[in-house]
């Protein structure tokens, strides 16, 4: 312990702001505690001292109900709204400020290759197991901390406006603060179990926030689904931890990374560990086949969708793989699996996104698709590229979600005003909003161009980085030389590249479609509603502007060598100490400078993005669209897409229903009640009762019968003596 402290003290970050790293999650946690207490304090009414004696029909209870009944529909600010807004946004903002201070300290500390680990106290120490509450700061976690606290703060500010009339205002901020705290624990954790605390903690917050409006059953169901599907993935994460510990006797990330080569290159063991870890990522980051929870998660308030289900939590899987890069490069098979799953998810989700009408559902599938891209990147060992896309995606997808939040806010306000009960999120009910919401319109177009991959917006650079890396890995490196399910690695990777391009095309199409239907064409809301449509307040538009700027210029974070518009490869260099070795291992021979092939690839990517937008503009007719209530049913492949390939129904019928009815009818009523209880337990009781009954039949009370019994008994005893 002392030695360790000494080692920490000599670290270049030891005397800087980095020593307050523990405050990063603690500040939002404090916000959670304050807001949670406010929420409970405002709604708690003390119960009677003797609940079983108190009649259910006393006056106070009735009054309470009246009070509760009214507060649901009332559009009034929460009594603690002011203090909640201050505490709820200040805490993540302070975290962000601290994060910047630490970042500056790291920049000035220059290159350091060992992470700064700050250990607080023992968590689970027994035998050879040593798990401590320890946080780890290095370039990778720093990037994530900045994204989480930065984007997080913006979304908190946006929420002040978006949630202003909600009766559970402090509760919302409490959950959001708690989320930020857990997310920071996730990225800062110095060992897998500590990471897992954050990993599950964000799952909890996701559950609570998806089911935030819990009095609608579908919302609560969606939260439950998210948590359970995530847990399926968590089994993988847990198993990976067990395997790592059983073989390496440590769970500290640095120690595991250092010891990873001892597991043996391409050994079955390391592949299994990586695949289990990836299973965790599949759950958390909504990849095939566990993506189903994310579209449903849109049931939560829109800021939640922006923060948790687009910018931060769902990218945790990408972060985990980047964190464990030393393990993954040991197993090309696992890497290719990651890339293949990522690519297939990207394509699959993009096709579903083509035909969704709910504006948030489109964005949800888009998120799944973009996460697929990120896995494609980290799968092929281009960790910096994957992280780069994670960052730009955080910007433009948060912008898209918040923009759609603005739209929904406006639509909802308009509908509320006129008492209309139509779907405020359905694009068929929107249209032509550019006139009423010019800022949102402009900013969302920036984000759309970014996600579509049009230069010079951020998404172009990050997506191109990934596709370029896939193409490069297909040519040389450990992945190209490996075989995957009997196929040569390079062939697989070329195919992935092709599918990646196809996905890019689809991305451009569905995003343009979203913009066209929402902002262009005629307005499809009613006359009365149209009068109420207007831009959201500045507390909401402000964060949008910031994100818009970031989405536009985010590409400069990591310019490719082919396009030296500024300093090249900033992020690559920054992440070099963490993932550089792993990237180099995966890449094998380093390419010889800039080649003409790369320019061709860039040209193809741009062409495809533009083509997608053009196709959408040409083919789609927003003017011909009917509002949702008048819409005609779809047919053929479009119906299949609209219904998301019926995957949810398939899971329900093939897994959930058999499991539940099997548990009920076979396990509970069959085995538990039937076999064990009725047969063995009550059966043995019945047996002894039966024996007793037989015995009692001899007890007739007839003295004569007894005399006979005695006589025959005596006969038998005498006989026994006689014929001994």
């Amino acid at each position, binding site marked *: 312990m002392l030695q360790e402290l000494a080692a920490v003290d000599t670290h270049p970050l030891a005397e800087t702001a980095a020593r307050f790293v523990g405050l990063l999650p603690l500040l939002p946690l404090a916000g959670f505690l304050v807001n949670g207490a406010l929420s409970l304090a405002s709604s708690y009414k003390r119960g009677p001292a003797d609940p079983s004696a108190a009649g259910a029909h006393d006056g106070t209870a009735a009054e309470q109900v009246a009070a509760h009944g009214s507060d649901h529909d009332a559009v009034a600010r929460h009594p603690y709204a002011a203090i909640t807004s201050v505490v709820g946004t200040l805490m993540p903002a302070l975290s962000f400020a601290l994060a910047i201070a630490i970042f500056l300290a790291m920049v000035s500390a220059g290159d350091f290759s060992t992470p700064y680990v700050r250990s607080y106290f023992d968590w689970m120490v027994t035998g050879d197991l040593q798990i401590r509450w320890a946080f780890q700061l290095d370039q990778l976690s720093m990037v994530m901390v900045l994204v989480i606290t930065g984007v997080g703060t913006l979304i908190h500010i946006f929420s002040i406006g978006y949630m202003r009339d909600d009766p559970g205002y402090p509760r919302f901020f409490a959950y959001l603060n708690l989320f930020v705290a857990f997310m920071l624990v996730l990225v800062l954790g110095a060992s897998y179990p500590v990471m897992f605390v954050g990993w599950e903690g964000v799952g909890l917050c996701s559950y609570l926030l998806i089911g935030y409006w819990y009095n609608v059953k579908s919302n609560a169901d969606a939260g439950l689904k998210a948590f359970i599907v995530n847990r399926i993935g968590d089994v993988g994460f847990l198993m990976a931890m067990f395997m790592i510990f059983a073989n390496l006797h440590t769970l500290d990330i640095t120690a595991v990374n250092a010891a990873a080569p001892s597991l043996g290159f391409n050994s079955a063991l390391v592949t299994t560990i990586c695949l289990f870890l990836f299973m965790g990522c599949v759950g958390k980051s909504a990849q095939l086949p566990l993506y189903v929870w994310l579209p449903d998660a849109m049931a939560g308030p829109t800021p939640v969708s922006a923060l948790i289900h687009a910018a931060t939590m769902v990218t945790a899987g990408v972060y985990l793989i980047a964190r464990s890069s030393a393990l993954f490069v040991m197993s090309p098979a696992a890497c290719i699996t990651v890339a293949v799953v990522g690519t297939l998810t990207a394509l699959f989700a993009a096709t579903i996104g083509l035909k969704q009408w709910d504006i948030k559902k489109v964005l949800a599938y888009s998120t799944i698709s973009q996460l697929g891209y990120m896995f494609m990147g980290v799968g092929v060992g281009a960790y910096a590229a994957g992280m780069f896309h994670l960052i730009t995606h955080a910007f433009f997808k948060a912008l898209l979600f918040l923009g759609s939040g603005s739209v929904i806010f406006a639509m909802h306000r308009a509908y509320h005003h006129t008492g209309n009960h139509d779907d405020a999120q359905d694009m068929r009910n929107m249209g032509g909003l550019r006139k009423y919401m010019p800022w949102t319109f402009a900013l969302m177009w920036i984000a759309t161009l970014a996600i579509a991959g049009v230069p010079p917006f951020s998404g172009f650079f990050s997506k191109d980085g990934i596709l370029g890396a896939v193409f490069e890995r297909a040519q040389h490196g450990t992945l190209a030389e490996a075989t995957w399910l009997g196929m040569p690695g390079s062939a697989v990777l070329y195919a992935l590249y092709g599918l990646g391009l196809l996905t890019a095309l689809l991305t451009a199409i569905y995003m343009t479609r979203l913009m066209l239907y929402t902002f262009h064409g005629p307005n499809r809301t009613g006359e009365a509603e149209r009068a109420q449509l207007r831009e959201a307040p500045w507390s909401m538009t402000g964060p949008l502007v910031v994100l818009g700027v970031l989405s536009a210029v985010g590409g400069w974070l990591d310019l490719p060598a082919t396009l030296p518009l500024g300093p090249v490869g900033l992020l690559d260099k920054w992440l070099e100490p963490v993932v550089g070795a792993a990237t180099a291992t995966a890449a094998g021979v380093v390419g010889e400078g800039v080649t003409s092939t790369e320019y061709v690839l860039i040209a193809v990517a741009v062409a495809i993005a533009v083509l997608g937008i053009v196709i959408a503009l040409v083919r789609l007719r927003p003017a011909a669209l009917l509002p949702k209530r008048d819409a005609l049913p779809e047919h053929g492949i479009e119906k299949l897409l609209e219904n998301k390939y019926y995957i949810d129904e398939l899971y329900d019928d093939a897994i959930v229903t058999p499991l539940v009815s099997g548990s009920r009818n076979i396990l509970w009523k069959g085995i538990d009640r039937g076999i064990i209880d009725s047969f063995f337990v009550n059966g043995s009781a019945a047996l002894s009762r039966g024996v007793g009954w037989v015995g009692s039949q001899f007890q007739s009370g007839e003295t004569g019968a007894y005399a006979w019994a005695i*006589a*025959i008994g*005596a*006969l038998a005893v*005498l*006989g026994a*003596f*006689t014929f001994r």
Partner: protein
Amino acid sequence: MNTLVYTFHFYLFGLIAIASALAFVTRKSAVAAALWLVNTMFCLSALFVMLDAQFVAAVQVLVYAGAIMVVFLFVVMLLNLGEASEVTDIRSLGGKLTAGFVGLLMLAELFSLSRLKFPRLMGAMTDHANVVNPVSAPLFHEFLLPFEVTSVVLLVAVIGAVVLAKRGPKAQ
């Protein structure tokens, strides 16, 4: 006493006892049965005398034949059961045969068990004139406590009989 005469009388009383007993179990009338039983008791008392238990023989006549059987007869008459009112009092032929078979079987088993060889007669009791002493000496020395307990048993029986046979207030 002449051994032959003695043996003759021994067999005589024994056989009469058995015959009376057989008559006793087969009479339908309770009074007749009781009288046959009294006859058996008398014969047995004679056997007791011949086995040098003169005092017990006297008691047998007094207590059994005299007291107990009289009580039986009283009860029979009190309840007016003198005539065989119920035809079903004796079991069916099958029952009788089975009972007889069981009895014979038991007898056979008893005989086959008693393979002991008894001497014809051991020396006679020492003092024929003094018949009570040999009984009373152990009774009031060795078996004093049981003897006293027996008196308590009798007392309890008397009280019990009174309580049981008394008409309850409801019956009146």
